[in-house]
């Protein structure tokens, strides 16, 4: 079973993502509401994939992405963003994020992007 870490500051978003992913048979190994926890959990749980919200209360998603990539260069990261954050998304892709999901997202879209990233 593929293991996924969710990073998002909104409990609602985390719950939705978690339900979508677990329903589809993935294991959600952790949920991080901020950048600090995200970095810790990425190290502790070594997931197969991380979904990363770009706006977090302590760090920016971009900083978290850099932090994760510094420790685990091969970690697969998907950016979760909203409309209007194209600049950050592009930057994130440059820093090694595999792809992105735009909020509000549909279940199909999430699963499609996650599956594709995991298959790569």
């Amino acid at each position, binding site marked *: 079973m593929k293991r996924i870490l969710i990073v998002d500051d909104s409990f*609602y978003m985390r719950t939705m993502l978690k339900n979508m992913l677990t329903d589809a048979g993935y294991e959600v190994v952790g949920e991080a509401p901020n950048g600090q926890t995200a970095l810790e959990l990425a190290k502790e749980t070594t997931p197969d994939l991380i979904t990363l919200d770009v706006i977090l209360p302590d760090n920016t998603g971009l900083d978290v992405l850099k932090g994760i990539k510094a420790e685990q260069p091969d970690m697969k990261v998907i950016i979760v963003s909203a409309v209007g954050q194209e600049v950050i998304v592009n930057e994130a892709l440059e820093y090694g994020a595999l792809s992105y999901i735009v909020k509000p997202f549909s279940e199909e879209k999430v699963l499609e992007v996650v599956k594709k990233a995991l298959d790569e």
Partner: protein
Amino acid sequence: MKSREQEYKEIFIAEALEYFDALNRLISELEKRPQDDKVLAEIFRMLHNLKANAKAIGYLQISDVSHKLETAFGLIRNKELSFSDEVVGVLFDGIDLLGELIKNIDSEQQIEPDPILIRNLDIIVDSLSDSTVELAKVQKFSSSRNLTLSDLIYIQVKKLDHLMNLVGELIIDRDRILSLSRELDNDELKMVSSHLYRITEDLQYSVMDARLVSIGTLFNKFPRVVRDIATAEKKEVDLELSGQDIQIDRNILQIMTDSLLHLVRNAITHGLEKPEQRSKAGKPKVGQLELSARSDRESVVISLTDDGKGIDLNQVRKAAVAQQLVPADVADGLPDTEVFSFLFEPGFSLAKEVTEYSGRGVGLDVVKNAIDSIGGRIRIDSKKGKGTTFTLQLPTSIAVKGALLFEIDSIFYAIPLIHTDLVVALDKDELHEVGDVLVADIKGETVTVVYLDELLNIPESAMRLGDKTKLKGQVQNIIIVSYNNRKLGLIVDKLYRQQDIVVKPLSKPLDSIDIYGGVTLLGTGKVCLVLDVPAITKYFISRR
């Protein structure tokens, strides 16, 4: 799934209200320190989440207003809009509107945002530069300002427990006053006490109601659990849930959590067969598991049904004999319901007998104890090859119980209704001495009957449970109780009435006497012992 939608909605509202409160705090801080980037970033983040969440769940008004505010704060952050008085006013109004929209999610009436306010928001969002001409168009908008607090509160279960205890004490005093008013025959006191009766009853149900949660909070965890266990066991399972909206006392649900998990795990591990075995048996490859809840008068009934291989009664009989729970000659004659009850004996296992049917029953005594502790009942129905159903009958409340009052040797006793099946009056001649016990034919079923006075009040050495001459009078009042699929008739001297009682546990050193579940005070002020049916059944069996 309806309940998941409900869960999403509750989470959305709770989080949105948190954001709303934080936004109010932050914007006040920003007013004092307009240049504080950290505060701005926080505001921005919250509006951003609110917008995305609202869009996801479909509250478009909220996402729309959040979007406008987010844009406005974005302009402020990029120094394209200054934090002037007009702007601050509009932003405050906008946040208030958000709060109103969030709080109104649950109400029938949709609120229409004031067009002036929306226009003001549009003006500041669209005024790319600090065009005073544009901003001057901002109209005075005054909403009736009042402080509102959330309609929902979190409360510690401990506090509700305390409240329930107090209600219990009140009920005891109420019954005493009611009974005094009758004794004194005072009309005014009678009137007051009957009013008191109604109010305490209302209070009791209100407090009980406050402790209820929907069973879905537990049930909705099972799809995932079932999936994981099924994967590990290499089985295919289709779980069907129903009755998630049924309400049950939170503490009862808490106590039942492990037991339900245990039963579900058992059903998948030992009940349902592997796909290839199912195909061979002519069943669909995917095993069916049904977890359902329904209300049944004063109780909640949870049932778990699998269409697996079922329980082989002969295996159970053999295992019971092997584990010396019953002599071989008796085992053959036992009715099916009594055979099932062996599964709840501590340490009982089928595993030692036949590995193919291994395990069913392991740890079921733990489940049984949990259910006993809250005064519930459990029943097994199973057909070999067809499947098994566990039915759990649980009280809706722990503190207050419906009970049947009776008298033995001038002492009052109560017995919880959840364990009583029926009450019959039989002529002494209809009781038969069989071996060292009495039996009677009750609705076509042979039921062992015991004279409670003899069982409770006669020293063991002199106890003669099968002696009819001990009975007083010709007609015998018998309460048929049932525990662990076994029926037992209890002969009592006098039957009184049904009544809601508040059971107070026995305190030290009396708490070691387990045949009494506790005591209650009757309206007359008399102490009444509450019989514990599981314990009395076990005690009776040990005396035979």
